[in-house]
Structures are given as structure tokens and as C-alpha cells.
């Protein structure tokens, strides 16, 4: 990075935000990583960090970046798994969590308007005062912001009923790479057939078109009651068939997740801590399907009974009798409630770290996908952590699959091996008529290589990028370029 430009830009940024801008190497170090696998000594430091408090400040910051042609990277929860928030080309990092205000709670129209840097958990705590909640709930909700959820199109626990962030999102304000603030999307309704759907472009844009500064979201009443149950299934495809059958019967299911036996271990730390025993599953059980049901108490009770009857009678599944196991899983998955001072969740990443290929597969090809996962992981020398199938489209079985491994991040070669695993898994997903990413995004992993999925469509995406960001300053090095999968022969 040209330090003359950085120095000039920094001086101008200080005029805009005062001491909410810094070039200190200490602060820059604290912004050197997200949750993606990096090897020791691999630290990507932005040149400047700046904390805006409103849209107009973001506009002025973007003008500076535009003038000096310096990359601008938005940083939010820092829990992304694809390197999307890592400033590997240097530049200005916008710490979006200064944009943390709730601008309006409209109870009559069931909407909330927020600045984009508000943490999902914080927002929901506030909404709870009005007996409302935002059902978009990634597991990272204690750290993840609304803006990051839009930018990354991350997963949501309650996707089977409510979908992902795009199903809640009514409109958003984006400060484009042209330093213009634009509100896109309808005001307080969920659909519009006029114009192009620019709002959709923002979802999963990963900061490459602009910085999202505000959003209006549809919220829903907090349900009166919730129950969670687990069902042991004989094969993975049965989990999708079961969900489809339950929905077809007219039952309302709030969430559905299927774990392979390995992944169950990862999600039951609090159970094992609390009860001092390992989950006991019969040999024949290939997967465990967890369903949650929410609503009025009597409706929930009926739904649980009926769902259990269908799963056992028609799918030959078995209800998990040990409800403590189910609640322990839910503690890890949703409540994020661990026993203070005793929870051991991070210990799972003491020697190696969590890493995943996040594939979308057709629901009839789960068995095949799982078999290939085991083969590819072995070939790439990756230790199996297990698989979770998320259902993230309202009222239909879908398969957003986390194929997770323990990544050895002790050396550059080992981390490159992980990204080779991601590459081969992505190729497998396309071969099976799926997608190479469902919730992590391209980040610094898949850019360019993603032409395998998009074909000539990628060219149009580049053109769209140029309309929003003619100087290529918005999260430079992401979505169209990979630092890990460089050899695209036969792809690009």
C-alpha cells in the first residue's frame, strides 16, 4: 500500500471522525483475522481503522477511499468463516459496530429499523420488551450484526419457518463505492414488483458493492411455547423425507437440523459436561434429526405428538427418549447457555480449528454427498468433525450442509490442504447439481473459481460490481479473486 496515500487519507478521516480513526499497529492487529483458517504468522492488518456512527460519516469515509483509491473493508462480528472481513489488500477497515442504534420499532406494522452494526442478540433483547423477535438467528448471534447477516447471507436456526435474513429484510441503506447513500427495497412491505430487486443484490454481496448502514426488518411475535425433539433416522435422506412429509401433513415446524453421529459430539459439550456421560445412540442410527415446534402451548403439544407419530410410523425413526440430550443440543445450538466457568466449548479448537465446506445439495443426494465428503476429507488429510444439514427455506426441506473438519493451522501447507478440501468439495457440489456455498460466501476463498458454478453469469456479476464500485475499492480481493484456489484451469 502506498503510504503517502494512506497518510493523506488518515488525516482526512481524522477530520471526519476524530479519534475514531487509528493507524496504530496494536489496533490493526486486533482486526487481523476473522474465523477462517489461517496459519501461524498469517496476519492481515488493515492500514487504518475507522468507526463511523452514521450513514453520512460512511459517505464521507467512502469519498476519501474513492479519492485515494484505497480498499474499504467492512468489519462486523468477526466470526465469518470465509475471510470476507479480512483486509488482505490492506486499506481502510470500517468498524461497523459504531452503527449500533435502533432507529424505530414500529409495533403496528411489525417492523424494526436499525443501524447495520447492531448485534442480533442485542436487538432481540430490545425487541423482547415489545414481545417481538427477529427470527433470523445465526449461531454467531452474540457477535454477529444485522449488516453482516445481510452481507454474508449467513445461516439461521429458524430457517425452516422464517427463512434467512432476506426473508425478513424489507429495505436497506447502502453507501456504494461511488460514495452515494441509496435506500433500496420497499418501505414497510415484504414485496414489490416495480423496478429491479436491488435489495436482493445486497444479500451475500460481502461488502463488495458498498457498506450497508441501515436496514428495516420484519419482526414477529415471540411464541408462547417451544418444544424441541430429536429423532433417530436410519439414513440421511430420511431426514429430508421426514421434514417434507411433516410439512405436507399440514404441521408447522419451526426449525429442523440433521446431524451425523460425528457432528452430534460437537454439539453436545454442555450435555456431556452436565451429565458426565456420552450420548448413547443405537448402531443403526445414521443421523439424528432435531425439530423445534413453537406457538400456542396446546398447538405445540398437538404438533409434537403428531410429528412423532409420523416420524416413527412412516419413517421408521425413533424418538430420542433422553430429553436431556435434546436440551443439551439445543443449549449449544440456540440458547448458547453454558454453565458459567465450566463450559468447555472452545476446547474443541484447542489443537485444531473448526473449518467447513458449506454446500447446498439437492435433498435426494445427501447420502451421496456424505459418502463423497468422507472420501475427499481422507484424500485431503482432513480430520472429520461431522455434518449438519440446515433447513433454511420457509416450509420446504432444503439442504444447506456444513461438512466440517478439524483444520490443522500449524503450517501454511496444512492450511492449503484445507482449502484443497474446500475446492474438491465445491466441485462435488456442482457435480451433484448443488452450490459451493450456502452461508459462508465467497470471501477470499472462492472468487474466480466460482465461475464453475456461475459460468458466463460471473461476467455479468463483474459488470454489476463496476456499476456500484467503479474504482474497485469495496472489499477488494473478494468474490472475484481467491488467495487460496489460484489454479482455475478448466474453470475460468
Amino acid at each position: 500500500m502506498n503510504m503517502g496515500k494512506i497518510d493523506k487519507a488518515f488525516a482526512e478521516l481524522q477530520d471526519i471522525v476524530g479519534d475514531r480513526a487509528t493507524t496504530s499497529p496494536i489496533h490493526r492487529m486486533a482486526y487481523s483475522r476473522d474465523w477462517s483458517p489461517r496459519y501461524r504468522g498469517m496476519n492481515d492488518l488493515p492500514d487504518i481503522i475507522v468507526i463511523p456512527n452514521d450513514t453520512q460519516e460512511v459517505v464521507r469515509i467512502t469519498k476519501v477511499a474513492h479519492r485515494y483509491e484505497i480498499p474499504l473493508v467492512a468489519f462486523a462480528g468477526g466470526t465469518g468463516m470465509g475471510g470476507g472481513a479480512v483486509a488482505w489488500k490492506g486499506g481502510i477497515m470500517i468498524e461497523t459496530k459504531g452503527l449500533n442504534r435502533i432507529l424505530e420499532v414500529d409495533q403496528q406494522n411489525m417492523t424494526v429499523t436499525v443501524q447495520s452494526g447492531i448485534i442480533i442478540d442485542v436487538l432481540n433483547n430490545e425487541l423482547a420488551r415489545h414481545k417481538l423477535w427477529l427470527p433470523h438467528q445465526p449461531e454467531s448471534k452474540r457477535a454477529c450484526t444485522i449488516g453482516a447477516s445481510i452481507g454474508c447471507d449467513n445461516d439461521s436456526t429458524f430457517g425452516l419457518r422464517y427463512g434467512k435474513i432476506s426473508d425478513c429484510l424489507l429495505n436497506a441503506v447502502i453507501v456504494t463505492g461511488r460514495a452515494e447513500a441509496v435506500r433500496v427495497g420497499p418501505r414497510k412491505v415484504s414485496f414489490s414488483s416495480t423496478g429491479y430487486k436491488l435489495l436482493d443484490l445486497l444479500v451475500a454481496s460481502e461488502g463488495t458493492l458498498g457498506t450497508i448502514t441501515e436496514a428495516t426488518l420484519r419482526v414477529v411475535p415471540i411464541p408462547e411455547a417451544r418444544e424441541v425433539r430429536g429423532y433417530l433416522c436410519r439414513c440421511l435422506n430420511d431426514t429430508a423425507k421426514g421434514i417434507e412429509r411433516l410439512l405436507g401433513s399440514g404441521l408447522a415446524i419451526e426449525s429442523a437440523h440433521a446431524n451425523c453421529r460425528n457432528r452430534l459430539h460437537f454439539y453436545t459439550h454442555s450435555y456431556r459436561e452436565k451429565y458426565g456421560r456420552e450420548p448413547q445412540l443405537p448402531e443403526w442410527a445414521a443421523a439424528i434429526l432435531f425439530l423445534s415446534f413453537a406457538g400456542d402451548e396446546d398447538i405445540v403439544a398437538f404438533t409434537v405428538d403428531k410429528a412423532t407419530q409420523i416420524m416413527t410410523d412412516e419413517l421408521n425413526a425413533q424418538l430420542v427418549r433422553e430429553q436431556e440430550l435434546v436440551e443439551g443440543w439445543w443449549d449449544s445450538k440456540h440458547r448458547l447457555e453454558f454453565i458459567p466457568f465450566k463450559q468447555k466449548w472452545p476446547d474443541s479448537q484447542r489443537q485444531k480449528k473448526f473449518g467447513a465446506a458449506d454446500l447446498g445439495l439437492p435433498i435426494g443426494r445427501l447420502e451421496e454427498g456424505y459418502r463423497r465428503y468422507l472420501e475427499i476429507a481422507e484424500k485431503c488429510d482432513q480430520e472429520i468433525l461431522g455434518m449438519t444439514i440446515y433447513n433454511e427455506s420457509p416450509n420446504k426441506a432444503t439442504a444447506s450442509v456444513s461438512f466440517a473438519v478439524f483444520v490443522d493451522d500449524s503450517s501454511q501447507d496444512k492450511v492449503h490442504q484445507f482449502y484443497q478440501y474446500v475446492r474438491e468439495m465445491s466441485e462435488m457440489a456442482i457435480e451433484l447439481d448443488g452450490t459451493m456455498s450456502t452461508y459462508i460466501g465467497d470471501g477470499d476463498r472462492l472468487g474466480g473459481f466460482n465461475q464453475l458454478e456461475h459460468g458466463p453469469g460471473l461476467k455479468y456479476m463483474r459488470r454489476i460490481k463496476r456499476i456500484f464500485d467503479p474504482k474497485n475499492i469495496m472489499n477488494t480481493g473478494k468474490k472475484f479473486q481467491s488467495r487460496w484456489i489460484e489454479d482455475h484451469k478448466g474453470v475460468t
Partner: protein
Amino acid sequence: MMKGKSLNDYTEDIYTCNRTRCGFCREQCPVYHVKVYETYSCRGKMLVGRGLIEKTLSPSVEITQILDRCLLCGLCEARCALNNLDIITSMRREMVHRGCPTPVHKGNVERILEEGRLLDARAAPERDGQFTLYVGCVYRSKPRELATALSVLERLDIHPLIADETCCGYIVEATGFDKEFEMIQGQFKKTYQQMGAPEILTLCPTCTATLKEKYGLPVKHAIVAVAEQLRKKQQAVKPLGFRATYHDPCHLGRMLGVFDEPREILRHLGIQLVEMENYRYFSTCCGGGGGVNAVDPDLSIEIAKNRARDAIGVGVEIITTVCPTCEPTLLRAAGRLAGEVGTFVDVQGLWDLLDKALD
């Protein structure tokens, strides 16, 4: 007691945090909440630690300044399996060892070494009695507050024995001066470990935690003894009859697990207790912890104002607490906040409430 480990001893813990990045520690960190830079959160400091270990960062006054702004309140640790306070303290030690101490802390350490106390002793409470009581530097500098607490204890038939004491050294250890802390421990042990008291009562939550954890002494905060005595004596009181919230001091609550006794006392005094959103294990710091008040009083006040906002948020007009640091810190902030939002939330110490109710 075991000497503190070096920063390098925590390498695997720090890498574990860097690998995990759950961020559970961040949002409620009172310092991060004011400063917003990740660096002030525990997760951010763990990356600074990585930088020091891998030598991409060199020890500097700026790192010291960032570490100085940690309250050591332990809220990050309540959400984590790692011993974050030990790791952050090891980073502070690293800064002292490598020539970047904080002048104000260094001055305090020298004073404690020279005079045996952090603050001017304005009270001379030494006396004979049945129960050994360690008063601590802060209460010795506050004669009115100390007299109130001692009077309450006497009225409940807890007759304290108070010796000429020296500082427990918490602030010395917490700010990274480990060699000096060893010397202070030597001074302290001369008085207390030789007394061989079966149990030492304490008034200050921080001293209580230090005596327990750093000296291995059998300690009990005096407020626990008061709760026991009220229960045992079925003590009649003049009901105070107002609504109030209780602020858990970090050392007394999260670190020593004393949550129920202060609440039991409040109920005994006829106070309607209304809990704030963050309480017991997940109570947030008053802003006075970890030496922050000494290096950045403005930050301390901003944090305390946020705690006062928590109380206003649940609709009470009185915060009670039982810590000689929390009480004045919250009261100062409440005054400032009143000027900004037009609502004043009063802060009253539990000893004062007991004094009124036992009158």
C-alpha cells in the same frame, strides 16, 4: 502461592481464542462498549497477545495503555473456558518486565512498598475483639464509612479484632508488578498468617478475593456474617420500604460467589428488590475495577454511567451495593448522568441501609 505464568506460557490458550473467535466476551465488555475498538475486548487483546508472542508487535507504552483499560472484572471469563484474567495480567507483567510500566501504577506500588498502604489512612480502628477483621486501604481512608460498618457489626454482636495491617497488594499484582507483589506478600504474611485466625472477616470485596486466592487465607466478607447473624437472631429492623436494585461487585459476586446474602439482607430490611438486566454472574462492572479509575477516570465514569442507565432502565431510583469502590464510582456517574438525562438514580451502600434499619 504459585507465581504468575509468563505470556508465552499462555500461547496455546491465546491461539485457542484466536481459532475460536466466538465473540461471546465482546459485546458486554463494559470497556469495549464505550470504546468500540475490538482491541479493548478480551478477544481483541488475545490477538494483541498473539502479536507479542509472534513478535509482530513490540512492547510499547501504547500496549500498556490498552491493557490498563481492562477492568479485570471477569465478565469475559464468565462466558469462556479460558482464564482470561490470568492471561491479561500476564500481558501486563510482560509490559512491566520489558520496560513499559504505567507511571501512576508504578507510583502506587512504590508507595505501598514504602508506607504499607495505597491510600492515606484517615482512620485508626485498631481494637481487640472476637473476630479478626481485615479493613483494607480503601476503608481506612474513609472514616465515616468504616465507622458505620463497624457500628453495624457491633450492633449485631460481631465484635471485630483489628490489627495494624498492610495492603493486600491486589493493585500491585493486577497491574503487573509481580516482583514487588512478592515483597508485599512478605510484609502482609508477617501480620496475618502468623495470627492463625480460624477465619478473617473482610470489608472490601477485592481484598477478600486477594486474601483468599493469593494468600490462601480463610476469609469471609463481613456482609455474609451479617446475613448469618440477622438470620440467627431473627433481628427486628425498621423496614425501609422502598424499591431498589442491587449491583453485584465483581469480586464479591462473580469471583467469590456471594450473590444471595446481600439480597437476603435487602429483603430483611423491607426493600423491594428489582433486578437489573445483567446481574449475579453476568453483572457488569461499575467502572472502578482493575486500576482503570487511576489511569482513565473519564472512561471509568462512562462505564459507571452505563451501569446507572441499567438501573434507570428497570425503573428504580436507588442502587445499593456493598463495595467501597463501586459505591463512589456509581454515585459520581449517577450525578453526571442526571445532568444528561434528567433522571437521578441514588446510590446507597448496604452498610448505610443496615445502619438506618437497625437504628
